[in-house]
């Protein structure tokens, strides 16, 4: 088991958004998070990535096993594509960036300044960083935003290869990536009820 979440409640700011989420993710598995906008997918992913401490519950994962990719690409526009990737390779202690470059077809762009690339190209660079981390659990927040159909397929191939190597992935997305064995977790049932019932100051009306 790569990642297990027990009775997790998490909050964005001071508003509790999700309550009592439970799931487990095994090696080679993908779990797709679905839910309407604002239902707390990002909050859940940030909690699992260790950026937001949970209100209650437990997250079981090996230390340093999670690679997070959020809405922002985390790219330095003044540096070249290669320098951006090499920086993250250095941070994560990875020697080679070749596989990451090949998976997202970044070879022709390597010497380009990241600031001169299109949004879709930046997203490819941002996703290539995941391969550089060499971490088994990918936590991805809307990874296919601004990608064209060809690159969505490229991304799906990268995820499948990652799963085949025993990795796992937790992906919040609205589109179908064509992953055969992916389970779907709808977060809507976990959306926290207004706490007003038992806490007079918990309701949103008081915020």
């Amino acid at each position, binding site marked *: 088991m790569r990642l297990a979440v027990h009775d997790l409640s998490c909050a964005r700011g001071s508003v509790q958004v999700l309550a009592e989420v439970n799931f487990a993710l095994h090696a080679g598995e993908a779990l797709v998070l679905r839910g309407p906008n604002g239902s707390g997918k990002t909050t859940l992913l*940030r909690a699992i*990535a*260790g*950026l*937001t*401490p949970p209100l209650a519950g437990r997250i079981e994962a090996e230390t*340093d096993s*999670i*690679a*997070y*990719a*959020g*809405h*922002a*690409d*985390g*790219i*330095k*526009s*003044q*540096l070249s594509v290669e*320098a951006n990737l*090499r*920086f*993250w390779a*250095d*941070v*994560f*202690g990875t020697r080679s960036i070749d596989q990451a470059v090949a998976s997202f077809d970044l070879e022709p762009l390597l010497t380009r300044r990241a600031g001169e690339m299109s949004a879709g190209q930046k997203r490819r660079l941002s996703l290539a*960083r995941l391969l550089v*981390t060499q971490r088994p659990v990918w936590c991805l927040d809307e990874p296919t935003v601004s990608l064209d159909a060809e690159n969505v397929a490229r991304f799906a191939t990268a995820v499948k290869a990652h799963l085949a190597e025993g990795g796992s992935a937790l992906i919040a997305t609205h589109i179908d990536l064509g992953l055969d064995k992916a389970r779907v977790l709808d977060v809507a049932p976990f959306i926290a009820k207004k706490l007003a019932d038992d806490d007079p100051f918990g309701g949103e009306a008081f915020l």
Partner: protein
Amino acid sequence: MIGLLKRDLALAIKAGGGFGLALAFFLIVTVLVPFGVGPATGILSEIAPGVLWIGALLACLLSLDRIFQLDWEDGSLDLLASSPLPLEAVAAVKALAHWLTTGLPLIALAPVLGILLNLPSEGYGWLVISLLAGTPALSAIGTFGAALTVGIRRGGLLLSLLVLPLYVPTLLFGALVVTRGVQGGDGTTPLALLAGITLVSIAALPFAAATALRVNLR
């Protein structure tokens, strides 16, 4: 960690990195002071230590909000927080990068600007030594302030208000070292206190900065 340092140095030197901003500000302040005070060389050489230290301190303050803000805006800070680097190390490296790109050039420029202010010749050695001992504290304290205010849009004002009181002891002892040196006295006591402030700042504040970052990334 070396990779982060190299990247920050590269970014500071590239266009828009703000490398020259602090230096230019320091230059402008010290060039303007003689115009404002008048040509009486006696007054100028008397206030030169204080003016040079205030100029260096304000120049340092000017570049603080870039330390974490840019990384926060483009999402790099989230990614760094979930990387194998501890946030304490990130804060320490950021402070070091800030000192290398701001403090060190200021130290190199200060003796030249001392001539403009008619700083007596006994003062130059003390000026460089006091800046060497004091400016690392400015970077360490500033990094802590930047960590406290990261995520606040246009948080520069709040950052200045938070950091300036913490800068006062460094300014007091730094300027006192040079003033004593100019008067032919012994500057070692204030210099020791200055170095003490710097050592405590370097040792303790990266931990405080990391805690502030964790709270602000929520």
